[in-house]
């Protein structure tokens, strides 16, 4: 997910030049993004504002006879910007903003149930002098909770158009679209609202009084649910149950779908091997192309499920509660509750985790969380762990009543979590010296039934971005790797001169591997990895896994010249140490496997993550620091594991 070009280019249907532009501004939780989805459907495209780390959402809406462009700006409570997100909103509304074209009109999305607070933001927008209209959301909730508002009087008091709109209500959405079409005739307030905080509050009071506004009672349904979900005992219990269900769903529900995808690609690979008669081409198509793409797409069900679950938790309002419950724990690491969400997402993949840090208002917290996120055990580590643990212990070995494989896997997750929290604590302590502490505040929105359209939109853009960005990186790596493993090519005469039995396929491929470019690289880095018990064959796997961890599994399969590429573990367990004092002993001894597990737990072997870190921090400095400190950690941990297990094993 690196780079800014995620929109399909060259398609005239997405060309937005020359169209009228509207920016959506509103408080977080004001229904702004729901309204955006409802106006623009799934035609939205995501990108980045140039030079900053904030995501840009742009979509087109069809009015009566023409399209207009809608820009969904980050949610904000104020135009006195503190966070990077808020600075973007200010810049877009500026007449000569640097990062985006000034919109023709602004739609301020105002939640009718929190009208007083929303009016302070509206006042600040009106001071910018752009054509403005108000989309009033949640009027149904206001009524249900015993509140009241006279929209006609509100229009008069504000001096701008006010349209009540419930995103699901087609009539109201059409009404808003008709208002948008008339933007050139929008009324403007006679006098702009005051800028001073106290005067703004007085202005808001007078508007509320003029509109006969009656504040809603607290949401009875929300209070009843929170009495349980935020209860000191029950709330904590439910929280852990939700987290348990979250992981169970991601791993258990995704497993059979992942099995199908693996099956399809295995079948495709075999078909390619049979159909293509040229050996090297068959190997290229089967191993590099199909194997590379398949290796990525296998994670698609998990990524999709993760985003569905997060969208559901967020849309229902539970995510804010989870952040509230976890805030004190996160504070121990110098972070705040919302960082928990980012670290939780990192269990699937550090990339969405790093992107989730955008919700953190403090730049210091963002950085600390980004430095920690790649240490959380992500789904790309999973196939590596499963392979290595499978080599280490048998399927039925138990420690008491507990399956030993499961126990080790659980321990790896614990190691990841502890490492991430410690790294965050250190990073936040180091950067605290420089930065000013930002206030922590978090709105606890009323519970809602998540909207299907918002969930679909979230999953759609995440899955699309994952497939496009990550597959390009992994595909490139597998192709390069295949080239390195299979070249230079050798003639029969050359091999016979070196005493190779050219009639034996195994002998030929083993000679080709020993003399490949990859082997030279593996041998060149041997001094670095030898103390960890790794030989050059493992090193090839490590070098290739710097692109993406899961490549390690495929590489070792290739390296082992596996007769059974479906089950690399079987071939691997028979690999022996080729030289040195331990010659003839199994290469994958418990000490080596323990060292490998530790290395994968800590090292930043993921170019996509490095790319996202570069994009989100705006420089190569932070990805370089992350890569360096994680490599050092990985090496030291692997060394210790190798020595400790070697001494006992």
């Amino acid at each position, binding site marked *: 997910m690196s780079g800014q070009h995620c929109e399909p280019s060259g398609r005239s249907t997405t060309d937005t030049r020359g169209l009228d532009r509207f920016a959506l501004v509103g408080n977080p939780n004001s229904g702004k993004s729901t309204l955006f989805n409802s106006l623009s459907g799934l035609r939205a495209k995501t990108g980045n504002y140039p030079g900053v780390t904030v995501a840009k959402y742009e979509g087109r809406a069809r009015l009566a006879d023409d399209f207009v462009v809608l820009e969904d700006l980050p949610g904000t*409570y104020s135009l006195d910007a503190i966070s990077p997100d808020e600075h973007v909103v200010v810049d877009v509304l500026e007449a000569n903003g640097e990062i985006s074209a000034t919109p023709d009109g602004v739609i301020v999305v105002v939640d009718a149930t*929190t009208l007083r*607070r929303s009016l302070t933001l509206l006042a600040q927008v009106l001071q910018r002098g752009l054509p403005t209209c108000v989309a009033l959301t949640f009027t149904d909730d206001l009524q249900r909770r015993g509140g009241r508002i006279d929209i006609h009087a509100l229009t008069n008091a504000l001096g701008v158009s006010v349209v009540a709109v419930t995103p699901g209500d087609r009539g109201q959405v059409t009404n808003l679209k008709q208002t948008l079409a008339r933007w050139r005739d929008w009324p403007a307030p006679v006098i702009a609202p005051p800028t001073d905080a106290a005067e703004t509050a007085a202005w808001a009071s007078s508007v509320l009084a003029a509109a006969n506004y009656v504040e809603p009672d607290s949401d009875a349904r929300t209070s009843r649910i929170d009495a349980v979900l*935020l209860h000191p005992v029950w709330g904590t219990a439910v929280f852990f149950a939700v987290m348990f269900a979250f992981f169970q769903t991601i791993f258990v529900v995704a497993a059979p779908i992942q099995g199908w995808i693996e099956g399809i690609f295995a079948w495709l690979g075999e078909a390619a091997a049979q159909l293509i008669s040229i050996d090297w081409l068959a190997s290229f198509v089967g191993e590099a192309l199909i194997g590379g793409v398949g290796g990525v797409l296998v994670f698609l069900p998990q990524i999709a499920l993760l985003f569905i679950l997060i969208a559901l938790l967020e849309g229902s309002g539970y995510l804010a509660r989870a952040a509230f*419950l976890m*805030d*004190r724990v996160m504070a121990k690491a110098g972070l705040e*509750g919302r960082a928990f969400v980012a670290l939780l997402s990192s269990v699937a993949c550090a990339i969405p985790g790093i992107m989730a840090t955008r919700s953190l208002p403090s730049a210091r917290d963002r950085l600390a969380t980004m430095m920690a996120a790649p240490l959380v055990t992500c789904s790309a580590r999973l196939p590596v762990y499963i392979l290595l643990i499978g080599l280490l212990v048998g399927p039925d070995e138990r420690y008491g009543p507990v399956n030993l494989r499961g126990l080790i896997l659980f321990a790896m997750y614990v190691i990841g979590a502890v490492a991430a929290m410690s790294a965050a604590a250190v990073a936040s302590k180091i950067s605290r010296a420089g930065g000013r502490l930002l206030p922590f505040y978090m709105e606890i929105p009323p519970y809602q039934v998540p909207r299907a359209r918002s969930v679909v939109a979230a999953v759609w853009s995440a899955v699309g971005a994952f497939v496009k960005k990550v597959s390009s990186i992994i595909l490139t790596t597998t192709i390069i790797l295949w080239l390195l493993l299979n070249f230079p090519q050798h003639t029969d005469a050359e091999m016979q001169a070196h005493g190779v039995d050219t009639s034996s396929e195994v002998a030929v491929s083993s000679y080709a591997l020993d003399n490949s470019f990859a082997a030279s690289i593996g041998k060149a880095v041997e001094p670095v990895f030898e103390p960890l018990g790794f030989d050059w064959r493992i090193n090839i796997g490590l070098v290739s896994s710097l692109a993406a961890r899961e490549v390690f599994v495929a590489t070792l399969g290739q390296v082992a010249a596996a007769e059974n590429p479906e089950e690399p573990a079987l071939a691997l367990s028979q690999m022996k140490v080729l030289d040195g004092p331990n010659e003839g002993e199994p290469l994958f001894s418990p000490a080596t496997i323990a060292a490998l597990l530790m290395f994968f737990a800590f090292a930043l072997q993921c170019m996509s993550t490095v790319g996202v870190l570069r994009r989100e921090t705006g420089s190569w400095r932070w990805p370089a620091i992350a890569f360096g400190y994680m490599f050092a950690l990985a090496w030291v941990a692997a060394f210790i594991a190798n020595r400790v297990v070697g001494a006992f094993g």
Partner: protein
Amino acid sequence: MSVGDCAIVTELDPTLHPLVARRLADLGFAPGTQIEVLRRAPLGDPVIYRICGYEIALRSAQTKFINVELKS
């Protein structure tokens, strides 16, 4: 203040950074506004308050700068 208490904001501490003070005011913590303590997190902090018809969680690190007068 303990859970269930209501109070009126009297002033924001003048030592507060101007941007932070402005943000708290924009969130509704302006003099004269009523706040109610709704619930505490299991470990005591943060605390959820009800203000201007909505609920917001604040840490004690921020609330110590908001001076209030308890309503009986």
